[in-house]
């Protein structure tokens, strides 16, 4: 299985029936296409829509209807539109059950960096800082290492933070890792990897319980 596919399928298992969910741009957006049967969720788009539907057919593309990634979308039945202040009242006010975001770095304390690389990339934080401050659960969906093979799970973030102590769960193609007050706990490893492979690909120390699941 493609590693991005594996990540989004595992993240989708974190969704609970009835959840209001905000999916970040890029890899997290793909979670919408693999929602398990019987799980009915509402997708929030911070540009002002509660109830994102599937991508449109060619003849139904509407420039006035986009998601936060600026992609054309459709309305889900029962959706509603609102302005940016109301949208972030939903986010900051704790009305979003779960957000899925990408990351450049996550550390042992659950600190997240995903919005800038000083001197190289300055794109802005968009809604990410509000989402990590307000969503009830923050799940990170990312590849375990950078293109150069460096661990993205580090003892302490070196890049500017998006939020401090905000991450609940990290899902990569290799592992599912829970952030606890005591540190990072390895919950599951991928079915085709080994404990040694996961720990050696992870720069931050991992607590390994007696029972580690497979996914």
């Amino acid at each position, binding site marked *: 299985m493609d590693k991005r596919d594996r990540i989004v399928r595992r993240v989708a298992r974190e969704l609970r029936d009835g959840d209001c969910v905000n999916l970040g741009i890029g890899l997290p957006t793909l979670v919408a296409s693999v929602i398990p049967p019987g799980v009915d969720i509402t997708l929030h*788009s*911070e*540009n*002002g*829509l509660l109830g994102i539907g*599937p*991508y*449109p*057919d*060619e003849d139904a*593309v*509407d*420039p*006035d*209807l*986009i998601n*936060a*990634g*600026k*992609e*054309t*979308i459709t*309305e889900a039945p029962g959706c509603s*539109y*609102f*302005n*940016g*202040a109301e*949208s*972030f009242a939903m*986010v*900051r006010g704790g009305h979003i059950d779960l957000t899925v975001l990408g990351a450049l770095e996550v550390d042992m304390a659950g*600190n997240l960096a995903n919005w800038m690389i000083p*001197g190289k990339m*300055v*794109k*802005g*934080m*968009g*809604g*990410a*800082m*509000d989402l990590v*401050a*307000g969503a009830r659960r923050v799940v990170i969906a990312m590849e375990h290492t950078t293109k150069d093979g460096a661990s993205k799970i580090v003892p302490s973030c070196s890049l*500017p*933070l*998006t*939020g*401090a*102590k905000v991450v609940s769960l990290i899902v990569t193609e290799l592992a599912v890792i829970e952030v606890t007050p005591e540190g990072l706990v390895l919950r599951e490893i991928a079915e085709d990897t080994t404990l040694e492979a996961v720990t050696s690909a992870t720069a931050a120390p991992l607590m390994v319980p007696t029972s580690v699941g497979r996914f």
Partner: protein
Amino acid sequence: MNKVTTAEAAVARIPHGATIMMGGFGLCGIPENLVRALHAQGTRDLTIISNNAGIDGFGIGVLLGARQVRKMVSTYVGENREFERQLLANEIEVELVPQGTFAERIRAGGAGVGGFYTPTGVGTIVADGKETRVLNGRSYLLELPLRADFAFIKGYKGDRAGNLVYRKTARNFNPMMATAATMTIAEVEQLVEIGELDPESIVTPAIFVKHILQGTHYEKRVERRVVHRIHAPV
């Protein structure tokens, strides 16, 4: 009082160095006519408050390309190479604001609120230089209101009194911005007579709108056309 104007007449009031809010999320719900007229007028040294900075060659990107902008206040600017070039070369000033804080600062600016405490940005560089306060056991930052000299608003329908309705996600930041400027100018796709809009459905009441104009030649470009994959019959 007649509020109906043209884009050219509306922007003629804008001096060099003005601060202007512009509605829109990406290219969705942007005031195309007013941006076009401001570009043609050549007004310089502008501070623009807008969620994004357009793309190269369209929207605010046109103003950036013509070097009319001194400073951007935005939340995400990743779609515009010329902007990123000017930023990395220190040719333009930028203030990046978390999106919810951006929206609420504008709302506060229009609502006469002197500031507010938000948990967004605590423990990040966004907190630098700001008052941090613990309320009910949680840390918050003090954020101050945002206002502008002018606001460029894009509505779907508007009446001659200045009441506005929006369409789908083209609403975005337009309603807050309409409240937070000394002079709000709205352009609409359909300018209608007073009484034609259902009062129950009006999103921006006329009190916030000083001038309104019928827009023309809307391009309404799509930034990322993604369509449902149509599977070939097996």
